[in-house]
């Protein structure tokens, strides 16, 4: 099966959810995978994601990712 390799940037506290707790993640996924699939793979709760950026532009979680894409996940802002 063909695969794509995507760089995912986890901003804010989202870095704490994957097994490797770091901001920059490289995710390998099947062809035609969507952003939501990457989010699930990284164990990031979708409710904590405020919006998603691809090359600086807002995109939907249903977007199909391509090999070499850089996806940025921006957390919701709460705070006391």
């Amino acid at each position, binding site marked *: 099966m063909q695969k794509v390799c995507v760089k995912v940037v986890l*901003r*804010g*506290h*989202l*870095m*704490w959810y994957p097994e490797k707790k770091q901001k920059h993640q490289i995710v390998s996924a099947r062809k035609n995978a969507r952003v939501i699939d990457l989010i699930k793979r990284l164990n990031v*709760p979708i*409710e*904590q994601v*405020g*919006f998603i950026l691809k090359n600086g532009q807002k995109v939907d979680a249903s977007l199909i990712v391509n090999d070499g894409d850089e996806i940025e996940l*921006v*957390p*919701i*802002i*709460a*705070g*006391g």
Partner: protein
Amino acid sequence: MSYGFWGKILEVDLTSKTWRDMEIKENLYKRFLGGSGLGGALLHSLFDYKKPAMSEENPLMFMPGLLLGAPAPSAAKTVIVGKSPLTNIWGESVVGGSFGPEIKRAGYDGVIVKGKAETPVVIYIEDQQVKFIDASYVWGKDVYETEKTLRGKTDEKAETACIGPAGERLVPIASIMILNGKSTTRAAGRCGFGCLMGYKKLKAVIVRGTKKIPIYDSKKLSESVREFNPFLMKNAKVLHDYGTLGTIQAVESEGDLPIKNWTLGSWEDGAAKTCGQMLDQTTYFAGHHACYACPVRCGKDAKVPIGPFEGKTGHAPEYETAAGFGANLLNDDLVSIIAVNDICNRYGIDTIEAANAVALAIECYENGLLTAKDTDGIKLKWGMSEDLIPLVLKIALKEEGIGELLGKGVKTASEEIGGLAKEFAIQTKGLSYAMHDPRAYTTMVANYATANRGACHLEALGYFSEGGAFPAKCINFYKKTEHHGYEGKAEYAVRLQDFMCLFNALGLCKFIMLGHITHEIMRDWINAVTGWNLTTEEVRLTGERLFNLKRMYNVKLGISRKDDVLPQRLLMHDRKTGAAAGSIPHYPKIMHDYYKYRKWSNEGIPTTEKLKELEIEV
């Protein structure tokens, strides 16, 4: 028979050591609900606004929200209401825990303390009976010792609101702390009400009640709550797991975090070192706790790692505290933040005001406005960590010199230092800024300018909504806005402010916004608890009424548009880095739209027509 409230406020006069029940008509609850709504109405109608904040005539009100005692999620908040000793204008300070629900269980909808005792005293309320207890043997003790000692002399199940040494010594930024022996503390930090409590020689108010507040339709309330809670819990996971401290990196990532006295735009590594997720991995983390009726459970405890209280357990730093003593001082040492947070709580001072005052002092020191001679030898510098401990102790204990100076709060301290110091003083109307930068989300420009108690984030929580935690559609706002823009921002802020007023009147925690609460849900809860038939529009209008009511209290004191200003640093300085780099808010346009949308005059005064529409008599 009434449901959800008793129709009674306890009025205590410390001068004569007498007390009486004050009957409140149902109509007043319908118009102002409870908490700071009802408190505001009573402050307007019963007390002379001209009297100084530090006077026998200024009341200290403990006002539980209307829904307290009912099983609505997070209905735990009590609001301390009065004229603020720190700002000398409208003051309200909100606190969680279980103190407010216990007031309701004791048969009251609020407690108003008038007068001034000659010697230290404790008010003990037990099921509509009041006793005055000599407090000389706890005067001087910190809040944990005070609560423990007094619980032993009253009731094991009692709830306590008390002051520490800071309040006793009349530190203007003193807080009132809530304790019950089971969990750690909660703070009514803002506005300096601990100072007023100390002036009244009131060490503590202790409450014990066994009454159950009647609910009109418990089944309907339960059904609504059962539907609401799972979604809330899903969205509040980070608060549940790590508390507000768990959000510091998210706030930093959007340029919302104040850094180096509000001059820098990013501090990624520092935020990662001082966040709740990091605390959770240390041996200092000591557990979780929840306020009354709250499923979120955002309270965290920590073991104090260093300093005079090393080894003791207390409330862990909240986001505001860690941002203030961390990022805003460039201090990435979590250990020192835990230690100074504990001193603030234990001795009873507001962590936000104290941290902003320290940031001011460091910048003054750096610019030669303060020297080591002024600081008793403590070298003030960015990134200072363990040296914060003696400095904060001096503030809390009002030690002559730097301690007494910074304990006066940012505004007064900057005025006394003089010269350029005012440039470094990040405050509005005498209250220093909560740790959210208006350059990141510009709804906060309108809010900080007009928030009734000064630079308060909680009167709008614009960053919360613009940052994705609370959809604007929940307040029927559908216009497209940009984080750093100005179009639509005034209306957005007004709608949020009016909505937020309802939280402090109902006693709800703002974190249930994560469950996307709406006016409709609030209406359902109010009607289920009280048996009223309020419409959604009546609920919305009540929020607007409360915001304008508080504004009118300030208007009587001379507040107008001239006071609705932000520090130049927050409006004119480009921080150059971070997600909000380049953001220079369009203050004139936002404020022009604000007064127009509010139907206030160009001078920032609610018009006669608006007051009539809202049925406000002043």
